[in-house]
């Protein structure tokens, strides 16, 4: 594991000591190299996880998430180049350092062997994200957004600390290897109810669950592009990953404790999809669509069947790439028009046809077009929830229709039609932007050919 952590740490001196003209090139190139080495993790043994040490490990659940995280860093650096071009040098280096430290914490989070270490790093990821949102965001509301983001997550996760320490005291160890064998069934009592809630609420807030999702539109919209990308792609999946790990020790209480959250998520996914249809702000639309997709993941994790686990992990990876790509596209719009309102920038297909291709692909994957992995994830979830309860298929069906509606609405609004007269002099797409989009969509399309690597440990 150190072969990923040490190079990532060393990216920081690389940034600070590079020549002025080379900071972006160096950091992007080297982080890309590190991401290629992460593919080595795919070589897993049979049903065991790949254990590096007593501290770090990776199994087929954390591997795809880890690869996604490491793949995203060069993409984030590429996306941020334009809006940081006017800052002074120290600020640029600070920004890159924040991204690298966030990356570091995320790598360690996904490979943490012990739950307390996982918790510490889970909280530690908040700090660079908060700094990125509040310092480099665009508007005055970013301070509010940062506050919401920080305190929602903190308030949700402090009970988790208490619960973890309690479990450590009773069970003896929080190490995954040993936890699997020492876990005892959790009986129904009030204190256990609270312990279940304490364990789960942190991840529910992070996912986010429909009732606790208020921080997400704010944080996503106000964050700069790199912040939005990492928030949408990876930080949300931290919640999913944590839930998948922690449900191991919470059986069999999850069977009945999960009901209210399943209901909230099922209802919430339809609600947030419908809200998307009424959004005027492009980034806000993409943020709400994230909530909607994650609600599916929550439902899948809480019903705890093999197929639903597979669907959840596939959906997490697929959504990570898709959401990140949509945010990059929205940002390319914003950099030209300086406004996020959708109606101000229409008919872009006539002006930027290649970008329209990326928009089309991103919208199609967002609405879970077969045979992309988005569809595989959603299909597994739909099938497993159907077998859990027949009626959910109506809700899922409605959600898929509304998802298709708003994805196409976004596509048609921004791309088709007559272009607004004031955007006739926008600069054409940069190669950097095209490279960014293709680097997002290429893994997505390639995974269509071999989806079993993202289907998680229960495949």
């Amino acid at each position, binding site marked *: 594991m150190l072969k990923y952590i040490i190079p990532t740490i060393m990216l920081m001196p690389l940034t600070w000591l590079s020549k002025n003209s080379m900071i972006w090139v160096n950091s992007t190139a080297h982080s890309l190299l590190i991401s290629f080495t992460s593919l080595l993790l795919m070589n897993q043994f049979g049903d065991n996880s790949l254990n590096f040490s007593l501290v770090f490990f990776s199994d087929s659940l954390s591997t795809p998430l880890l690869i996604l995280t490491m793949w995203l860093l060069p993409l984030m650096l590429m996306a941020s180049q334009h809006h940081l071009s006017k800052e002074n040098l120290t600020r640029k280096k600070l920004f890159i350092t924040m991204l690298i430290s966030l990356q570091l914490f995320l790598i360690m989070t996904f490979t943490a062997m012990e739950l307390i270490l996982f918790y510490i790093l889970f909280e530690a990821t908040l700090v660079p994200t908060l700094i990125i949102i509040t310092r480099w965001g665009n508007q005055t509301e970013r301070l*509010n957004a940062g506050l919401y983001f920080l305190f929602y997550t903190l308030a949700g996760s402090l009970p988790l600390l208490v619960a973890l320490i309690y479990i450590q005291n009773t069970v003896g160890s929080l190490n995954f290897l040993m936890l699997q064998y020492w876990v005892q069934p959790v009986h129904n009592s009030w204190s256990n109810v609270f312990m279940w809630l304490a364990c789960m609420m942190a991840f529910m807030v992070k996912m986010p669950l429909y009732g606790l999702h208020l921080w997400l539109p704010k944080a996503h919209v106000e964050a700069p592009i790199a912040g939005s990308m990492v928030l949408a792609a990876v930080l949300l999946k931290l919640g999913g990953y944590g839930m998948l790990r922690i449900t191991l020790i919470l059986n069999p209480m999850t069977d009945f404790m999960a009901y209210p959250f399943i209901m909230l998520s099922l209802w919430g996914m339809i609600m947030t999809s419908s809200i998307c249809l009424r959004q005027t702000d492009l980034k806000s639309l993409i943020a709400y669509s994230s909530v909607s997709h994650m609600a599916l993941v929550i439902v899948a994790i809480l019903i705890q069947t093999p197929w639903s686990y597979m669907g959840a992990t596939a959906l997490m990876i697929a959504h990570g790439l898709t959401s990140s790509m949509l945010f990059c596209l929205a940002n390319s719009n914003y950099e030209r028009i300086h406004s996020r309102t959708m109606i101000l920038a229409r008919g872009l297909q006539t002006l930027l046809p290649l970008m329209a291709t990326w928009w089309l692909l991103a919208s199609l994957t967002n609405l879970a077009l077969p045979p992309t992995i988005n569809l595989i994830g959603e299909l597994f979830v739909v099938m497993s929830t159907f077998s859990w309860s027949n009626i959910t298929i109506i809700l899922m069906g409605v959600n898929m229709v509304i998802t298709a509606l708003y994805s196409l609405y976004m596509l048609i609004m921004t791309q088709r039609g007559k272009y607004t007269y004031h955007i006739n002099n926008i600069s054409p797409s940069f190669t950097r932007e095209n490279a960014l989009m293709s680097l997002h969509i290429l893994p997505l399309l390639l995974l269509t050919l071999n989806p079993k690597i993202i289907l998680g440990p229960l495949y």
Partner: protein
Amino acid sequence: MLRRALRLRLGPCLSGRGLGTYRRGSTLDWDGKVSEIKKKIQSIFPGGAWNPLYDTSHLPPERSDVVIVGGVLGLSVAYWLKRLEKQQGAIRVLVVERDHTYARASTVLSVGGIRQQFSLPQNVQLSLFSAEFLRNINEYLAVVDDPPLDLQFNPSGYLLLASEEGAAIMERNVKMQRQEGAKVCLMSPEQLQKKFPWINTEGVALASYGLENEGWFDPWCLLQGLRRKLQSMGVLFCQGEVTRFISSSSHMETASGEQLTLKRIHEVHVKMDHSQEFQPVECAIVVNAAGAWSGQIAELAGVGNGPPGTMQGTKLPVEPRKRYVYLWHCPQGPGLEAPLVADPSGAYFRREGLGNNYVGSCSEEEPDPGNLEVDYDFFQEKVWPRLAQRVPAFETLKVTDR
């Protein structure tokens, strides 16, 4: 006696207690400080604007979709933008106005007339629509819980007089106006004398009289009505002056191979009054509706920087022009049915109110537009003779202060 005992006992603490009228806290301004702290705490809570260091409520927001620089036309643009947006709150509009009181704006200092008798068909169409808007202003600009607007629209019409040279042009114009739908009639001098006996028809060959949708109204009321409505629709207002436009330019090549540099404004610097403080507002669209000063705004944006004679070198051809308007009192003047009469010599007047007051001027001279001082000698020399010639009753008028 009790009071004396109290005073003795509480002597040293009296000053702190504030018994009687002695207040030591006045120099420390406790009330102000407490309210400031309360405001700060309120701003920390979610939902409030966060400004921990100092109060920024007078500054415009840091971002807006459309920035409109201007007076009543700007307000009208903002109104229609907000009115026609598909969902409420879709477009964020910021109106920047240099003078909150509109003391020097063209709108409030104007005569406030509306007519359809223009020579361009587009003007006639616009004016017809405006007349309909003004008639139904309380449906367009209605705000919940606010009193309805009273525009004092006097539909008395415009009477344009033409001499021999201008008669042919006038006839052509009236034909065009009738085609657009304006209700205008042509009158010969005899008809004119019969209808308006107080007019001296010497030198008049033809007159065109607007029968409907013409007249004058209170422009200040329109301004306030628009402002009120816009505030209720969520348009942000800011008092400040636009000092700079930050734009980004890119080199493009046209289809014929010509190299162009296209500029795009993406930031507006708005400077506050009486201070050096300015706020950069990031925006997508800037609407220049500054009226007489729109030429200056256009120059700020770089319109006109280029070799003279080319399109890049042409400045926006708008310059402020000053006109005097006078108010006078004449008891024997024309009665209630008097329209706004415009003489071929350039003088014009209209009735103001119901007390035999009249407003008018002459539109020929071009005094220096630097200040807004009124020259009364101009009235004596230029305007009055022409008025007196057209309307004999005006020989005995008396100018009141304007």
